[in-house]
């Protein structure tokens, strides 16, 4: 920087340091995104005629809309499963000794340390017709014929929930850690039982963490191409795979671009709902 040291604003350092990454984003994220938008505004695959045809096609096509709907629903289901299973873990983490805390954190982080592909194949082994669950159930005589677990919505939700769990648990652990433990005791001494304490005190105060966790889990779940495709198989189609087919197999780039933009807007809409909720709940956080 050319200015004299005395007149330097502290913020200018930050700008300078952020420049390389900003440039990187500009070239490899913003520019392709604009190109995508430009491409999606063409009615023909060759990209010669301008128009909103691709968008109209998507929004009037029941099949496309059902793919979008089922993808958004999948995200909601995965987020719900992660929240319900992740909250007790985070809650437990705040109430155990340091040694157990280390173990819990290790278990929470372990999924992040293995490749998504490996984890997904593990789920295929677990959920398959001759997989661990079916073999156990059959040997115990609980079922006669193997249950169909793989290639079902249930299977996809369970596998995705496991894969995305750290994204929910970590923000929750942070949020619950910020709550003064005396508040629990205070609530209890005032005559409130555990459930009242949870719903009136712990849950409202952990809301910033809940919202952060939900946003991350939701965004990750609906865009999880590998797990969705491998566990869902050919019968279940979600937006990332739909997009891939249009772009790669059918070479219909303008339609694939329009799908991308619509998907992006749908995700942004959901995320902004979460952030709005987060901003409203921030009134709770401090003090």
């Amino acid at each position, binding site marked *: 920087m050319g200015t004299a040291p005395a007149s330097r604003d502290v913020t200018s350092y930050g700008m300078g340091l952020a420049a390389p990454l900003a440039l990187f984003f500009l070239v490899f994220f913003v520019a392709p995104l604009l190109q995508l938008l430009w491409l999606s505004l063409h009615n023909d695959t060759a990209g010669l005629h301008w128009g909103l045809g691709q968008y109209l096609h998507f929004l009037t096509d029941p099949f496309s809309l059902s793919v979008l709907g089922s993808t958004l629903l999948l995200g909601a289901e995965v987020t719900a499963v992660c929240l319900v299973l992740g909250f007790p873990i985070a809650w437990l983490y705040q109430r155990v000794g340091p040694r157990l805390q280390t173990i819990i954190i290790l278990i929470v982080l372990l999924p992040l340390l293995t490749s998504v592909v490996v984890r997904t194949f593990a789920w295929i082994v677990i959920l398959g017709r001759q997989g661990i669950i079916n073999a156990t159930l059959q040997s115990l005589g609980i079922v006669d014929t193997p249950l169909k677990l793989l290639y079902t919505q249930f299977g996809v939700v369970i596998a995705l929930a496991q894969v995305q769990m750290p994204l929910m648990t970590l923000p929750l652990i942070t949020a619950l850690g910020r709550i003064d433990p005396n508040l629990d*005791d205070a609530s*209890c001494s*005032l*005559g409130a039982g555990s459930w009242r304490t949870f719903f009136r005190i712990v849950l409202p105060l952990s809301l910033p963490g809940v919202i952060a966790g939900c946003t991350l889990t939701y965004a990750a779940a609906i865009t999880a191409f590998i797990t969705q495709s491998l566990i869902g198989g050919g019968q279940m189609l979600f937006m990332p795979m739909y997009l891939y087919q249009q772009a790669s197999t059918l070479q219909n780039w303008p339609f694939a671009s329009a799908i991308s933009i619509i998907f992006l807007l749908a995700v942004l809409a959901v995320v902004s709902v979460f952030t709005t909720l987060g901003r409203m709940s921030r009134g709770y956080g401090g003090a």
Partner: protein
Amino acid sequence: MADTPGGRSLVVDAVTHRYHSGALAVENINLDIKGGEIIALLGPSGCGKTTLLRIIAGFIAQTQGRIIIGDHIVDALPPNRRAVGIVFQNYALFPHLSISENVGYGLAARGVDKASRQREAQRLLELVQLPAMAERLPRQLSGGQQQRVALARALAIKPSTLLLDEPFAALDKNLRLDMQIEVKRLQRVSGITTLIVTHDQEEALSMADRVAVLSHGKLEQFGSPSDVYDRPQTLFVNTFVGSSNRMPGVVVSADRTAAKVRLDAGAEIIARPAGGTLTEGGRVTVCIRPEHLQFVGDETGFAGVVGMSLPLGATVVHEVTTADGSGVKISQARIGETRALESGAAVRLAPLAPSLANAFPATL
């Protein structure tokens, strides 16, 4: 046991608590508290006073002993069914609830409807002199105001016992005095049996009807403030409560009421045997408070040399070095023109009365 209308008696019966590690937190504590009394649990940090408070509240299940509130043994009751009000050191107000909701929280847990809750919260806020704060959030209030709210919240459930955990520690000095007066006033109005945990001896002596002094998990003494201050039963109580000169010596002769002690500083004085019988020839520690020493003109008492004089407003404290080289503090009320003592002046000191010098058997 007589119960005043507001407060029930509280008995701590032979309570011992051992941590998981095996270390003793409190050992064989017995307190017999009458309904409506204010009791201070006084001790340095780590003496087990907060553990005892949490046992009474029900947050910790003691290893041995019983807690009896009124006529009921409450050991089997969880904290939310003991009707014990607590004011936490950091107040622990619910940050996301309004002041009114904070105060009404305990009533809501008891199924009181919203309108009655708000009315009661308003009444209590007027009692603690914060009538206009009902709709604010806790963080918009000052420390003293937050504490008043915490008090109102604890009183809302009409507790039989009120527990205050270092309630004034976070307040600055002037505010602390205001709040101490406020708490005492509220306690007198409501008649609730109150237990204050504190490490501040002035607070304990000024607020409590009786003071329980704890050290290392053991009850050292349980008595009125004047008992604790003037007739300490242990060397710890004598030195922890108020300031005290510790002077080593040897017992020349002793009976139950008086002991003649030859101080290492070089004088024979009569002292009160405190905390157990003294044996002739045994080593003792004699404690004399600075305000219980006087300058004497004759040959009684022990000799010393004035080191420094500190005028502390109403009193003047002189530091005197005795013949055995130890330092002794003497404080004098400033009456009229107190004569200034030159540094290096030779003086003789003696206790004001034999009952004001306490002799404790020296621990090896």
